[in-house]
Structures are given as structure tokens and as C-alpha cells.
């Protein structure tokens, strides 16, 4: 079955009782057991351990990536945390591609570090640097590609090879491209991590996350952590996300097309200093981006001539685009990572990895591209 068919049908079968074509929202805490001996015979006991609506989304995620199993979480950060707690113990070491989302960075340096886990942040675009960071106690590689917000790409197959040699797990945060454009498990990664909030939901309606595993034993380990720490997805969120998934590829194609047009517009604009979009020939890793993904996505960043002051002026004055966190929704969003999404990253580290003060991040939405370009044009005039 093709991706478009699967994003609609996978995981969902008509309700056997009523024929309901959509999975019902099982907004229930508990499940009545037929007898003590038949405990769990219908698969569910308590909605922290499992819920039929959430399960439908997990089955869809599994199918879309030809994986073994998936676990949905309350947020994308909960998914990252689930993977880290499942595979890292005190004294272990993890290699994280720089720069990861600010929340991931905070989770590593401010929380897991307190429990004796060590982290090395490496330039994922440089496989030699990745290989050099490996230690005897390295248990996990977490890469994010393209990275938020720098758009730096990591060679997934290359890191998977290093991880395999080190006997460690390679998890890829694939939120920016989704399985529609990029398939980490086919590039030998062990699992993909998602903020389903982004392109899966796509409508700014929910927050949610997922871990999609190539191996059942990995999924079991992650699910055990979830059951113990309780970071579950709610049935309402799962249901809304199930609906969002049905148009994911359509949205991604249209939003990516818009992003390309905007990137080209910005690249030719006299007030713009630089534009970073993987689909541009000028993108430093254009070859890698083209090789390991089938699309370039709808995220980009640019810097206005005049740096931070000019960038702030643009963001405060632009219309159509909303000044907001989040990304991947049908609404176009504009974000200043230094003060918003990546404020937790220390300044020296931030500048080292390329989150410059004047970086303006754009999540391109589904609006008419003429309106988006017109809005940028008008905002740039005021700079």
C-alpha cells in the first residue's frame, strides 16, 4: 500500500460493535475484566498502560514506518525522555547531535546529568567528530536531522554505522521531515522520535509525541518506562492526531512547495543577509539532504541585514505569519529561537552551533504562497 493510503487507513479498523468508521474516543480510565482468570484478555486494564484510541495511533505510526511497534507519549519531550530513561543508566554516556531542540538540551544537561549520565554534543554533519566522541560507556546516539533551528543535517546511515560498531542505540528525531520524507529505520537507525504536535497533528490542536521502534525489545523497554513514569498520550489527543495524519503528506507537499518559493524569494531579497533551506542549491549539505530524504520540508531560517534589531522589527511587524512557538502547523509561524525555543541553551554553546542572534525561524504553513511572500515583502520594507 502507498503512503497516502496507509496514512488514512493503517491502524484503524471499523468498530466491530457498531461499524463506526472512525476509532471511538475511549475517554475511559479503566476496563471491566470478564473474570480474574481472563484479566487483560481484551488487552486493556487501565488507561495509563494502554488505551484503544491511543493504540490505533500507535499502530498507524508503526505501519507508516514499517516498524515493529510504537509508543505514543503526552509530548515530544516525553518521548525523548522515554528513550533516554529506557537506554541510559548512571555512568552511561550519550552522544547528541548539536544542536538539538532546546528542550532536549535542557533534559540532558539539567536533568539527566544530575543522575550521572554523561553527554557529548557533536556536530552531526561531521562523522569523524561523531566517531571520535565514542567512549566505552556510550549507549545512545540521538540525532536530530534537519536540526532545529539550524537545519544542519546529520548523515543518518553514517551515524547508524558508528552506533552499531559501538554497540549503542541510534535514535533519530525525525519530527521535521516525518516518515513521508525521511525514513530513519531504513537508514539503519533503531528508532524514530516524533513530536506528533507538528506535522502529524498539523493543526495546532494538540501536544503529543511518539517513539517508533525497529525492534520489539526496544519498544518494550520504552513502554516499560512510560508505564512507570506515566507520560502518556490522552485519548482525545490521539483521536485528533489520527485525523491529522490522514492529510499529512498532502500538507507536507504543499507546505514544502511554499517553503521553497519563500526561500527563493528571500534569497533574492536585498535586505536579507542569508537564507538556510535544505532545498536551496546554496544549502551547505544540499547533497546529503537530497540523498537521505525525499523532500526538504517546510522549515527554514534567514537573517536580515542588521541582525537582531532588524530581525525583531520584522517579527514584530509581520502579518499573516504568527509570532509563536510550535512548527509544522497549517498556520505559518515565525519564531525567534534565541529568545523563544532555544533560550535554555547557553550563549557560548548557542553561538558555537550556529544559533546566531539574528536567526529568524519560519515554519511555513498552508496559506496561499503569494500572501506569505507579500507579508514578508511588506515586513522587510519596514526594516
Amino acid at each position, binding site marked *: 500500500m502507498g503512503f497516502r493510503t496507509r496514512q488514512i487507513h493503517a491502524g484503524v479498523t471499523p*468498530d466491530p460493535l457498531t*461499524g*463506526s468508521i*472512525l476509532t*471511538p474516543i*475511549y475517554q*475511559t*480510565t479503566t476496563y*471491566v475484566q470478564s473474570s480474574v482468570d481472563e484479566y487483560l484478555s481484551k488487552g486493556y486494564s487501565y488507561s495509563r498502560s494502554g488505551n484503544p484510541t491511543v493504540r490505533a495511533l500507535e499502530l498507524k505510526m508503526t505501519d507508516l514506518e514499517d516498524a515493529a511497534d510504537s509508543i505514543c507519549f503526552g509530548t515530544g519531550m516525553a518521548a525523548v525522555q522515554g528513550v533516554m530513561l529506557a537506554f541510559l543508566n548512571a555512568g552511561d554516556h550519550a552522544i547528541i547531535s548539536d544542536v538539538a531542540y532546546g528542550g532536549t538540551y535542557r533534559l540532558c544537561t539539567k536533568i539527566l546529568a544530575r543522575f550521572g549520565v554523561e553527554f557529548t554534543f557533536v556536530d552531526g554533519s561531521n562523522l569523524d567528530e561523531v566517531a571520535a566522541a565514542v567512549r566505552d560507556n556510550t549507549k545512545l546516539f540521538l540525532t536530530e536531522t534537519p536540526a532545529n533551528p539550524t537545519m544542519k543535517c546529520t548523515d543518518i546511515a553514517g551515524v547508524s554505522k558508528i552506533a552499531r560498531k559501538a554497540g549503542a542505540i541510534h535514535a533519530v528525531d525525525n519530527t521535521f521531515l516525518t516518515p513521508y520524507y525521511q525514513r530513519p529505520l531504513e537508514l539503519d537507525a533503531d528508532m524514530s522520535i516524533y513530536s506528533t504536535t507538528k506535522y502529524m497533528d498539523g493543526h495546532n490542536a494538540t501536544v503529543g509525541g511518539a517513539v517508533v521502534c525497529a525492534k520489539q525489545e526496544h519498544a518494550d523497554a520504552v513502554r516499560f518506562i512510560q508505564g512507570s513514569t506515566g507520560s502518556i498520550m490522552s485519548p482525545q489527543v490521539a483521536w485528533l492526531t489520527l485525523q491529522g495524519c490522514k492529510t499529512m503528506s498532502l500538507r507536507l507537499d504543499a507546505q514544502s512547495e511554499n517553503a521553497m518559493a519563500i526561500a527563493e524569494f528571500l534569497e533574492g531579497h536585498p535586505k536579507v543577509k542569508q537564507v538556510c533551506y535544505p532545498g536551496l542549491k546554496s544549502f551547505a549539505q544540499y547533497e546529503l539532504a537530497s540523498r537521505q530524504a525525499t523532500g526538504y520540508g517546510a522549515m527554514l531560517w534567514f537573517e536580515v541585514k542588521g541582525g537582531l534589531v532588524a530581525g525583531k522589527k520584522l517579527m514584530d511587524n509581520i502579518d499573516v505569519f504568527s509570532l509563536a512557538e510550535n512548527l509544522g502547523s497549517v498556520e505559518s509561524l515565525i519564531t525567534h529561537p534565541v529568545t523563544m525555543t532555544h533560550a535554555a541553551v547557553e550563549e557560548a554553546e548557542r553561538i558555537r552551533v550556529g544559533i546566531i542572534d539574528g536567526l529568524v525561524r519560519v515554519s511555513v504553513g498552508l496559506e496561499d504562497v503569494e500572501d506569505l511572500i507579500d507579508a514578508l515583502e511588506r515586513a522587510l520594507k519596514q526594516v
Partner: protein
Amino acid sequence: MSHFNHFDTLSLHAGQTVDDEFGARATPIYQTTSYVFPDTDTASSIFNLERGGHAYSRITNPTVAVLEQRIAALEGGSAAVCTASGMAATFCAITAILSQGDHIVASSQMYGGNISLMKNTLPRFGITTTFVDPTDSEAFRAAIQDNTRLIYGELIGNPGLDILDLAAIAKIAQRYQLPFMVDATFNTPYLCKCFDHGVNITIHSVTKWMGGHGVAIGGVVVDGGNFDWGATDRYPTITEPYAPFSGLNFWEEFGPSAFATRIRAEAMRDIGPSMSPMNAFLLLQGLETLSLRMDRHLSNTKVLLEYLGSHEQVSWVSHPDLPDHSSHKLAKKYLPKGAGSIVSFGVKGGRDAGRAFIENVELASHLANVGDAKTLVIHPATTTHSRIDAEALVAAGITEDMIRLSVGLEDVRDIKVDFENGFRAAKKIASA
């Protein structure tokens, strides 16, 4: 389950069979438009009402069905149909049996929406209404014409709070072989089961006490299953073949639930005011605590009646539980637990003092709803009843100084403190 018949148990369990697939304890929310048929024969038999089952959520929905069956059980009716609002329930119920040229005898003291429906909307389709004093049962009889097809009233009138003498009016309805339809929103089946007193059909705005939390709009029509539609030839929509369903005769096929089925087959199909599954789920949550909430609504009301009755800024207090209310005896008869949690009272100083009171209370919300868990106040003359003329206003028993109070579930001591602030502001106006 059928041997557990007490009210509180029914309000928690009636209508729900624990989901067979997973055992989910809560009712699943079937947020779906359609249902996949196992085969074409099943499909056609569902479409033709030959068997139960779901085809399309405008007609039926499994989550909504649980609410319908639960309310029917609480009310002691044969079947129920939930609708998108209480007004939709009233409209669908009336038009299921009345057509052009037919006539209604109705109480003159009802919710403004009911009055407007009968006075302005239904006449456009040739259905006319004679409004009568609800405290005069004989007036209902006197208003019956050859073309009268329905007697309609509210058990607790809105906002005058007059109580309908159900048994007396039911007797007249029976003698003239007319169905007696009652809007029972203000009493809920917890305070009065209207079918026990000869009523044939009840209507509820489920939005109010049944849902009880002000989170969802919804209505229901409950078929008492106790009217002989076949006794006369006046109700052809029930007793004659219905062409859209290959000549189906509702009375012959469905007997005691013929009326509810007609609404399902016609109004839900051709008019379509269906309740959403999400609203049904939210309203089910509310219904689970109906009796607990009603007991607290009533005990708070009792305390506030005493407080208002002795307050120097209050010119009058009206509630059927007060001995000086003209309906007090009827309230004792039909509403022995208490006559609901709506109170009207007058603020000394008239319209402006009334406004000052409403603008200076803080806890009590100024809004056009009743039956919320939160205490609500409103000035009917300028809001709920503003679209009816001055003459009808008087006929509906509304004065300009009237405040309508829907007593909530807060600690009643806080409600009194809040009201004290309102009365202080009203006093300034009154003595200015």
C-alpha cells in the same frame, strides 16, 4: 441490569452496556459520521428501520444512544430522542404530530423561546396556539377547538414559577383524546416523574440541571409510551403509512415508541438537529451526579429563600415552596422534594435598583442560562423575555424589578455575602 431500578443507580448505569471489545468502563465517544456495514442486507434493513443499528450520526450515534436510553429510564418513558438543543426538541416533538391547520393549547407562562416558537414561528406553517393561564386548568379545556391536537405547558413556569396541575390537565387531555406534552426542564425526573401524573411526552433542555455544568447545549424528547395514537384519526403522521419508508406505519410497527420513532425517522433525517457525540458524553458525565446536585441545589435554595424573605431591600420573593405562593399546594403534590432552584425576587427601587444588584454581585454570574452548578442571575425583562411585547410580558408574569436567580452549588454562606454587596448597591439607587 433491569432489576436495579432506583434513580441514582439508573443515572449511573442505564443505557450503557460495557463495551464488549475492550471493556471500557466509560462510554466511548463515537466521534464518527458513519458506520461500515457488514453487508448490503444489513445496510438496507438498518435504513428501513427493520432492525436497530447505526448508519449515519445524524440519525443515531452510539454515544448519544446511551444518553437517550438513560434519560428514558430516569423519566420512565418508552424511548427518547436527543437533539442539538432544547428548542430543537420542542420543535421536533410538535411537528412530529401537528401539521398545517392544527392547534395547540399552551400555557402563557413559559420560557420566551417556547412562547416565540408558538406565537411567531409555528403560525407561519399554519399551526396556531391559544395561550391560557397555567393556574386555571379549566382554561385549558375552554380553549380546546375542533382542530386542537396538543396541550403544552411547563411544570414549573418560567419565570413566574407557577406549577401546572398535571393530573387535572391530564384528565382534560384524556377526555378530549389529546396528548399532553410538558417541558420538564426545571424539575428533571428527579423532582417529578411527569408520566406518573398522566403526561404523555416530556421535553428537556439537557443543557440545564441534567447536564448541570454549563458545558454543552442539548435537548431531549421523551416518549411516555402512554398515549393511544390510534384512538382517533387525528394523528396521521403516527397512524398512517409513511411514504419515505415504503409505507411504514409507526403505530403498528413501534406501538409505545411510535412517536419517538417518527421523530427519529422524519425530524432527524429531514431537519437534522442531532446532538453531537462529544456533547452527549459531557452531558452523561453531568447526569451521573444529577440527584446529588439537585439535593444541594434545593438545600441552598431553602437557605436563600429565608435570607431573601427577611431582607430589607427585597420587595417580594417568589418560589413555589413558600407558603404564600399561589402554587404552593400543587408544588407539595408534584414536587415533594422541593420545587426546583429557580427563585424570582424584586429589588426595592425598581428597574435601576435591579440592574445595580446584578452589576454588583461578583460570585453570581450574569448570564442567560439556568441550572448551572454556578449561581446565575438575570433580569428577564431586558434579556430572556425581551423579544415579547409588553402585554405578553405582563401575561408571562414578569415585572421590571424582577431578578431571576438560578441557585448554584456554592457554599451558601458565600452566596449570601455576594448578595449583600448587590443589595448595598441597590440600596444606594433606591434611596437616591
